[in-house]
């Protein structure tokens, strides 16, 4: 009987809530997707966090600190959403640390110059927004609600990235060159954020049927390109694709070479090892702190009990 209610709710575009009956596969798919989204947020803190101490103005430093802090917050919202499905955050972190769960491959690329921070805001957050706005209507309530909160904050991030690049593009020759170089390096990986082409994507069909995924990878990728090309023109930057041309209401682009995506996802990207090592180190270095807090709390409650 529960299964009927589940399907009816999905078909009526309603919301599934934590204690509603749901197919086990739906629950497992959601746990994986939400957790990997959360992992992406916290791993994503590294490439940008790298530049906090080197930000070239105090205003930019403050904005960047706030942005990276937002990402920690997003990770928290998403872990909280995943936990409603009956799994503990500690277990999810174990899965990340042991490599059994993944994070967005985009964060395996290095941030080499200040302009990369602009490119990440403009392109990576831009792509994330295209992916994430539809998730605000995801069938699973807690995930949809977390996404609404996240999307509100994400749009600031994209604007900030664009503003960084706009300032560079209207600055010195060296600054403009820095901006173009960043675009050259981040363009293709950003396109790959939308995943493999539809005909190579294994999970999509089921996720669409369950209201977890609302649009196909190729649809979203095209939407992103259509949004971004005019923005590049405003910046005065050249998108590194000779095949880019306007046709029938869309910007047609050269299909990325997805072998790079598969390699990076497998672990063979520029920063995979470092990102995970840093994350694991933070976790392990913090173990004594977490243990201390737990021990203190236990002592306090024992004191209360004996006083009662």
């Amino acid at each position: 009987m529960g299964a009927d209610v589940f399907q009816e709710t999905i078909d009526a575009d309603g919301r599934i809530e934590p204690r509603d009956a749901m197919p086990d596969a739906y629950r497992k798919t959601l746990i994986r997707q939400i957790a990997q989204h959360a992992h992406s947020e916290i791993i994503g803190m590294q490439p940008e966090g790298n530049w906090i101490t080197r930000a070239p103005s105090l205003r930019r430093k403050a904005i960047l600190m706030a942005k990276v802090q937002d990402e920690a917050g997003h990770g928290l919202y998403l872990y909280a959403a995943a936990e409603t499905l009956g799994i503990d955050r500690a277990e999810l972190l174990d899965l990340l640390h042991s490599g059994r769960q993944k994070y967005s491959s985009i964060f395996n690329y290095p941030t080499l110059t200040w302009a990369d921070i602009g490119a990440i805001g403009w392109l990576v957050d831009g792509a994330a927004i295209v992916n994430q706005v539809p998730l605000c209507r995801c069938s699973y309530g807690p995930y949809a609600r977390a996404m609404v909160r996240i999307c509100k904050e994400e749009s600031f991030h994209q604007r900030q990235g664009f503003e960084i690049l706009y300032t560079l593009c209207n600055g010195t020759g060296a600054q403009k060159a820095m901006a173009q170089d960043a675009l050259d390096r981040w363009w293709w990986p950003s396109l790959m954020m939308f995943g493999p082409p539809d005909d190579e994507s294994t999970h999509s069909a089921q996720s669409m049927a369950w209201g977890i995924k609302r649009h196909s990878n190729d649809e979203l990728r095209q939407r992103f390109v259509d949004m971004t090309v005019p923005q590049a023109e405003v910046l005065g930057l050249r998108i590194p694709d000779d095949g880019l041309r306007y046709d029938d209401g869309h910007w047609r682009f050269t299909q990325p070479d997805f072998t790079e995506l598969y390699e990076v996802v497998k672990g063979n990207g520029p920063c995979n090892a470092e990102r995970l090592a840093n994350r694991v180190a933070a976790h392990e270095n913090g173990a004594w702190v977490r243990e201390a807090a737990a021990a203190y709390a236990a002592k306090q409650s024992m004191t209360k009990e004996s006083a009662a």
Partner: protein
Amino acid sequence: MNTDLYTYALRLGDDALVAAQRMGEWIAAAPQLEEDVALGNIGLDQLGQARSLLAYAAEVEGAGHTEDDLAYFRDEREFTNLLICERPNGDFAVTIARLLYFAGYQHLLYDALRSSSDATLAGVAGKAVKEVAYHFDHATQWVLRLGDGTEESHARMQAGLDAMWPYTAEMLASDDLVRRLAAAGVAVDPSTFADEWHARVGDVVDASTCTRPEASYQHSGGRDGKHTEAMGYLLAELQHVARSHPGATW
């Protein structure tokens, strides 16, 4: 230019800037995601104070400089921050000890500075006092938990308190400049709240089951631009990009 006022605003601004720089290093490295957010908030508060104070110093200087000119284009010997602010983060306990001592100082300072006859300083202090009250509270909560947590955390907390102790006298010291400005109702002489600082910090240390650090050699020199070896590296990171493109806007 009112050299005294310029120097004073610079001191307070440099303290906050260098403290914020150190706090920023914890983001993505904290022991728990919630703590990344908390330390990020603290760093942002400190940076906000730095920007207000440095902008004011630049205004008083009257040479058309901005907060960024002061932050990115002064050399090390021109920075007047307290040495405690520039000390490396160490482990979480060292950072928390430093925060306890420094936020404790800032709280007493800003609380009194709210009544400054200088409207800008009074305004900055009025906003900052609430922020640093939170910073001191945050540090207190952690000192208690680490001091009275496990054997390991207790040892590390004690080590942190001891390691930062030799940098505390400088915070609470008086000098001619601060005495002149305090007499004019502009500044606050830290020696006037030294006892209170010792009492507040001492209470926290006692409650945490740690021992109050013993008297020891006390470092100073920050106010004269004589820093520790850590400062050079800190400034290299902070200033490198801006200095590579002099005159550029970001």
